[in-house]
């Protein structure tokens, strides 16, 4: 087994993480399709796939339930999946949050009080971290059901890896609402905690926020108070799943300086948090081997002779020079990344000239994702 198959051996959860715009969704789909083609039952949970890709895989809009990708699509590509299945689901964070409330609410009345609360309606959509948390919540739920050999999670894009890793903690901390409870009852504990000047502070705050805003928030937290235990327990188990040795975090990035920096940063955070790091996938790489020029060669002269047009040959060589500059940059950045990883767990995928929008495109990516490093170099050189 090589490449991604090697990284994911014995794993039942693969979390693809990284900043926005690096091709994370496509990579997640490609990994899932590749593992399905190798005989596994795989489900990919995704946030917002390209419409053409989703359409070509026969996936409807949001639904929050997983759908099976028609096996005939694999057959059409000449792939024998040997019992493998590909399922996909588009995550609906709000619906997941609502389900979670329904599950934890002690009774129908509490449930409705929360679902109808204006603050809840606001946060279930907009609270920073809620989308991240709900992605993990859904992952956990599917993992509990153990209907799949492998779950691949395409995480919401975030500029900061901590946002994602921190989501369960932040959300439970928020739901506990301890800090705000202090504001609701500005006596006793609150006074002790914050000391002199506290009551004056609260009076200023009340004046600033308007009393009814504080009341809305207060009502929200009261409705939630009975559920805090359930949420905390759940978040604890989600965290256990993330840290499990059968989980693998795969960082997806691009070859430019900034995405590489972010990947390095993300890797460090995973290691610090003792989370299982699998490897890095670098998309859109210009391989050196694709654009190599040997010492002493004069490509412009050679090409001018072949094509019988000096000007055209020179324009082609000018383009080559531009591409070589990009390839040199990519190599430098990837060397830096590889040094940081202290292992050859860096998988490079070339810059393809066309958008990936169907299973055939995913399989093209998989030729690289599932290859050994020398195979990848050879593939790129022969493009």
């Amino acid at each position, binding site marked *: 087994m090589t490449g991604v198959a090697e990284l994911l051996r014995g794993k039942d959860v693969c979390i693809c993480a990284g*900043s*926005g715009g*690096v091709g994370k969704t496509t990579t997640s789909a490609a990994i899932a399709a590749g593992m399905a083609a190798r005989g596994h039952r795989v489900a990919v949970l995704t946030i917002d796939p*390209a*419409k*053409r890709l989703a359409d070509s895989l026969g996936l409807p809009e949001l639904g929050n339930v997983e759908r099976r990708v028609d096996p005939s699509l694999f057959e059409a590509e000449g792939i024998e999946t040997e019992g493998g299945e590909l399922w996909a689901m588009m995550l609906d964070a709000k619906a997941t949050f609502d389900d979670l409330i329904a599950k934890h609410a002690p009774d129908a009345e509490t449930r409705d009080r929360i679902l109808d609360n*204006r*603050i809840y309606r*606001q*946060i279930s959509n*907009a*609270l920073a971290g809620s*989308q991240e948390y709900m992605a993990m919540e859904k992952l956990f739920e599917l993992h509990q059901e153990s209907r799949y050999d492998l779950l691949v999670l395409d995480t919401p*894009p975030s*500029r*900061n890896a901590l946002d994602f890793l921190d989501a369960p903690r932040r959300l439970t*901390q928020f739901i506990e*609402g301890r800090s*705000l409870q*202090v504001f609701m009852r500005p006596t006793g504990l609150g006074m002790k905690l*914050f000391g002199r*000047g*506290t009551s004056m*502070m609260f009076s*200023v*705050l009340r*004046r*600033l*926020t*308007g*009393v*009814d*805003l504080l009341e809305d928030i207060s009502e929200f937290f009261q409705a939630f108070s009975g559920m805090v235990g359930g949420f905390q327990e759940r978040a604890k188990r989600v965290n256990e799943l993330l840290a499990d040795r059968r989980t693998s975090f795969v960082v997806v990035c691009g070859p430019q*300086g900034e*995405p590489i920096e972010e990947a390095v940063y993300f890797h460090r955070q995973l290691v610090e948090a003792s989370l299982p790091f699998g490897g890095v996938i670098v998309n859109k790489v210009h391989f050196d081997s*694709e*654009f*190599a*020029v*040997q010492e002493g*060669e004069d*490509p*412009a002269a*050679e*090409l001018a002779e072949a*094509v019988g*047009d000096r000007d*055209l040959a020179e*324009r*082609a*060589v000018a*383009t*080559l020079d*531009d*591409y*070589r*500059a990009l390839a040199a*940059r990519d190599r430098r950045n990837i060397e830096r990344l590889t040094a940081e990883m202290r292992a050859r767990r860096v998988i490079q995928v070339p810059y393809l*000239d066309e*958008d990936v929008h169907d299973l055939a495109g995913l399989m093209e990516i998989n030729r690289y994702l599932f290859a050994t490093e020398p195979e990848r170099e050879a593939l790129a050189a022969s493009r």
Partner: protein
Amino acid sequence: MADPFEKRLLFVTGKGGVGKSTLSLAIGMAAAERGKRVIVCEVASQEHASRVFRRAEVGFHEVEMRDGLWTISIDPDHSLREYLTIQAPVRAMGEMLSRSRVFTYLTAATPGLKELVTIGKIWELAQLDRKVRRGRKYDLVIVDAPATGHGIGLLQTPRTFATIARVGPIRSQAEALDAYITDHGLTGAVIVALPEEMPVNESELLETELTEELGVAVDRVYMNGIYPERFSDGDADRLEAVAGSVDGGARAAVRAALSEHRRARAHRHQIERLRSLVAADVATLPFIFEPELGVEGIELLAAEVAR
């Protein structure tokens, strides 16, 4: 079509990874060239501007990077502290309030408060009558907004608070913020896209959300990273015909040329799609073949942006 350079407040929005930070600086440079006093606000502590200019991190300070171009990194904690200092009836009290640990808890726990105080600070920067003592007056405030989802959240916050808080200063201030960002004479947004399917689709959605749901004017869509067209279809055919008969560097040159030709064609297609999908004026920006975009690369873009 409205000119984004004539606004006082300009949000640079778009999907992650499309070059919002770079373009924010490019627009800032172009406006400063025209003699405006400009500040570029970062809101996710990226410190992108300070890195481009090879300067120390700026943090919550207005720092001049070059003639007429300032930058600041806005974070919710500092914004809230400053807000309280300004709001408190007695300054000393505000300062005491803002030093209290209570506010770390408050920002952590109140939904949307981080966004509200952030946009409050952005608004404050755009005022001619600055609330901050001895505050500098800017002609243009540019916001390097967070990626699509969170960016919309940021712009939506004032309206949300104006609805949730029925009375009191928060309500009236949130209303004032909302009125400012939906005033098409004062505030605008530009959307940055890349010539790929997803960013183009997302630009269409983003424009609809900004204009129809939030009431924010979208002044321009910038299609970033467009490859040059160095080869005609005929050129490509002739190169393709000899691809098999050359090797080494010549073959690599053919491959690079054909790749660029294919990408340029794909880019043209996406530019057409974008033009058909969005109502705002679409401007294209060239791909800069440089390993990393430094000040010179951004100057090139600034010249294009100003056209």
